[in-house]
């Protein structure tokens, strides 16, 4: 969908009456955070890795927490021939292996009775007509008018054909009850993202499409929004007058693992930057929305992405990990990983300087970096404040004083840390930098739901706030496409595994008189 029509669709959304739970007067005040409407959740690729590791455990945990609608059915769809009972055993094994809570044998029979299986391919119309009959039967058992969710948990190459067949089997109707869930990648560049959107929009309206970026389901990512807009003391400082620069780091210790073929096609920019990292960036930089609803939030995110300049070759750095030690253990370099060509130029690290042309952020750069096989697994946002305009202390008293910084840690040890100067308890005046830490887990000790639990529940409830909209996806591709084009040739700088990336990344900040934080 072109940007303008996506916006028209978004604007018309507010006029579309939702199916309010309040139609049933007994629903008022109930199930805060839960879903109520009868629902059928179909997973395409139900025997795949994502379904086993994430989707089936998430749905089980939602059921155990009592958050699924009372009338709920899950339909697994895949090529493998198996019966409903076979699928139930398959699902149980997956949940036993990957769920954050163990299988409760007392509850299992009730949950298993909600599971169904439909064997079929992705490329034949007849299979989808059969699926329509199966779903129709289940819907009648649930009392009719069920919400139908179609979750594409397949390789991206199958998305177009599945979407087309859903349309031809009329499984895309009625639009108020049918939701299509697409996993990233949403294309591999701007052109393919538009093509995929065009195919999807032939059968589904934009508001029916839920594009999953699981990062947005993380509690601590959502907390960025709450931290900024539920507290009065930070937002007045959240601008170029007080903030010197912002650093966003998404660092992994893991290498490419068994995903060499995928990673060779993808690389760090498509895998992390175009989606996770730019989404976090947008949450940090966006203006306050009028309301915490899907269109208001996504409007503001898209607005700040539009105000951001496309990434430039001369202010970006790419790297690829070589052999080295990570946490004391020797690991091979990327080109020595199984399945990786010895002359691969796929970047496993990137850093870039982002500039936002708007009133709030003009002149305050955002530095982003992400990579594999880095020193530590950490995701954080560090807001570096400007130094005080004048220090009324002797120079030697404040020589170790650093500028204030506010660090929002997304993972691990989720929390917020504020760095400020304090007088050291000595007989002479000496100012030292100290940290004040808030640990998310110390104030909220209850189990934190998995990101997929949060997102699946939002899909059933029909709330798209935590999902990306097509205009935001397209703008993200516009920001990274120049780099993808430029980096098709040439070689990334090799950095030792277990380091913080290539030297050129340090030079990138040094040119601006700054340096990376050590997380």
């Amino acid at each position, binding site marked *: 969908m072109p940007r303008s029509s996506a916006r028209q669709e978004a604007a018309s959304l507010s006029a579309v009456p939702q199916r309010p739970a309040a*139609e*049933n*007067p*007994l*629903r*008022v*005040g*109930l*199930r805060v955070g*839960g879903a*109520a*409407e*009868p629902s059928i959740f179909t997973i395409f690729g139900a025997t795949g890795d994502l379904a086993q590791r994430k989707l089936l455990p998430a749905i089980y945990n939602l059921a155990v927490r*009592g958050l699924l*609608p*009372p*009338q709920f059915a899950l339909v697994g769809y895949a090529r493998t021939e198996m019966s409903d009972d076979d699928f139930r055993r398959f699902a149980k094994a997956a949940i036993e292996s990957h769920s954050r809570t163990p299988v409760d044998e*007392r*509850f299992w029979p*009730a949950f298993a*009775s*909600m599971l169904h299986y439909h064997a079929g391919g992705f490329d034949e119309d007849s299979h989808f007509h059969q699926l329509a009959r199966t779903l129709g039967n289940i819907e009648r*058992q*649930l*009392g*009719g*008018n069920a919400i139908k969710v179609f979750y594409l948990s397949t390789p991206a190459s199958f998305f177009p054909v599945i979407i087309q067949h859903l349309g031809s089997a009329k499984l895309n109707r009625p639009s108020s009850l049918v939701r299509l869930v697409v996993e990233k990648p949403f294309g591999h560049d701007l052109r393919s993202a538009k093509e995929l959107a065009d195919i999807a929009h032939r059968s589904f309206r934009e508001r029916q499409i839920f594009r999953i970026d699981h990062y947005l389901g993380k509690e601590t990512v959502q907390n960025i929004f709450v931290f900024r807009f539920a507290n009065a003391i930070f937002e007045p400082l959240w601008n170029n007058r007080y903030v010197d620069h912002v650093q966003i780091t998404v660092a992994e210790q893991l290498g490419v693992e068994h995903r060499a073929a995928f990673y060779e096609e993808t690389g760090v920019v498509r895998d992390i930057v175009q989606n996770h990292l730019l989404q976090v960036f947008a949450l940090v930089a966006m203006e306050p929305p009028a309301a915490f609803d899907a269109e208001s939030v996504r409007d503001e995110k898209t607005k700040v992405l539009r105000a951001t300049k496309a990434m430039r070759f001369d202010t970006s750095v790419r790297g690829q990990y070589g052999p080295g030690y990570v946490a004391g253990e020797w690991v091979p370099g990327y080109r020595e990983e199984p399945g990786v060509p010895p002359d691969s130029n796929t970047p496993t690290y990137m850093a870039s300087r982002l500039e936002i042309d708007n009133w709030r952020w003009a002149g305050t750069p955002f530095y982003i970096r992400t990579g594999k096989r880095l020193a530590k697994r950490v995701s954080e946002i560090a807001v570096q404040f400007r130094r005080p305009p004048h220090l009324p202390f002797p120079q030697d008293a404040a020589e170790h004083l650093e500028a204030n910084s506010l660090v929002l840690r997304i993972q*691990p*040890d989720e*929390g917020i840390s504020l760095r400020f100067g304090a007088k050291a308890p000595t007989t002479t005046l000496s100012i030292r930098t100290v940290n004040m830490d808030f*640990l*998310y*887990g*110390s*104030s909220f*000790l*209850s189990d934190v739901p998995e990101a997929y639990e949060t997102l699946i529940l939002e899909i059933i409830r029909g709330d798209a706030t935590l999902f990306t909209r097509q205009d935001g996806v397209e703008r993200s591709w516009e920001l990274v496409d120049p780099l993808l084009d430029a980096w098709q040739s040439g070689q990334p700088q090799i950095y030792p595994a277990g380091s913080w990336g290539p030297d050129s990344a340090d030079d990138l900040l040094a040119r601006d008189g700054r340096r990376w934080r050590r997380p």
Partner: protein
Amino acid sequence: MREEQRSGVALAQVESALSDLRGGEAAGSVRATTLNLVVRAVGDEDVAETLDVLENVGRSRPLRAIVVCSGSGVPVADVSSACWAAAGGEICTERIVVTGEEEGLPSAVEALLLPDLPVFVWWQGAVDDETLLYQLGFGATRLILDSSEVGLDLIRRMRPRMPCVADLAWRRLAPWRESIASLFDGRRQRAALDHLLGIEVRGPANEAELLAAWLRSRLGRQVGLDLASRTKVLNSVELHCGDKEFTVRRLRRNDHGVAGGPGLADHVVLLPVVEPGRLVAAELDHMGAERIFDDALAAVAA
């Protein structure tokens, strides 16, 4: 979990005793506190049971618990600090058991409350003398009672005099209300709700009355109540909607049950019997009055 305690501490020494139990300021333990919870207990056995319950509550919601118990003499405290490894460090919550003459307990509590944090008061057992209840509950963020113990009438009387009163029986009914509401999500079933005349309940009298009152308040009209049998836990609810009948019933010895009615296949619903600690913990997540409960309370048959 690491737990340490000290007995017979003068109230003025409670803070330093708690600090010592945490290992002093340099030990690196983090005192995490998000609320004050004042609990009324009767006798040593009740205090021991209360502390067991609080162990589970504190694990999910870091708090300072002040358990008050009537005795004789100037109030003194037993203090303990329970610490868990969490969030990359050690998280400690605090329990203070204050025993002394009843007249002195409210002021002892006032002196021990952590500043600026919400105050929840959980009153256990029957109410013999309402003075202490009023004194403890006055100014509390939320007063938590259980109509199974104090009766619905007392809760109705307390409600206008307190900023916020909660009933654990209402919280116990949450999955039942969910299940009953789910019967009427479909359009055909929704129409049947307009003909609801009365309900037949097998369960405790107070919970049956609360359910009927909830239906009256939501529908804005009279709904009859037939308590078919009194049982310790709620076992079934039948809703008579003209010639149509809807049912939610607990399966024996199980955490779930079955709900169904005309045009609806029987479906599994969660009906857990929730232990007190989790009920109280759930109440601690609500800071203000719950309008639906207040509406229902107003519709309880006098």
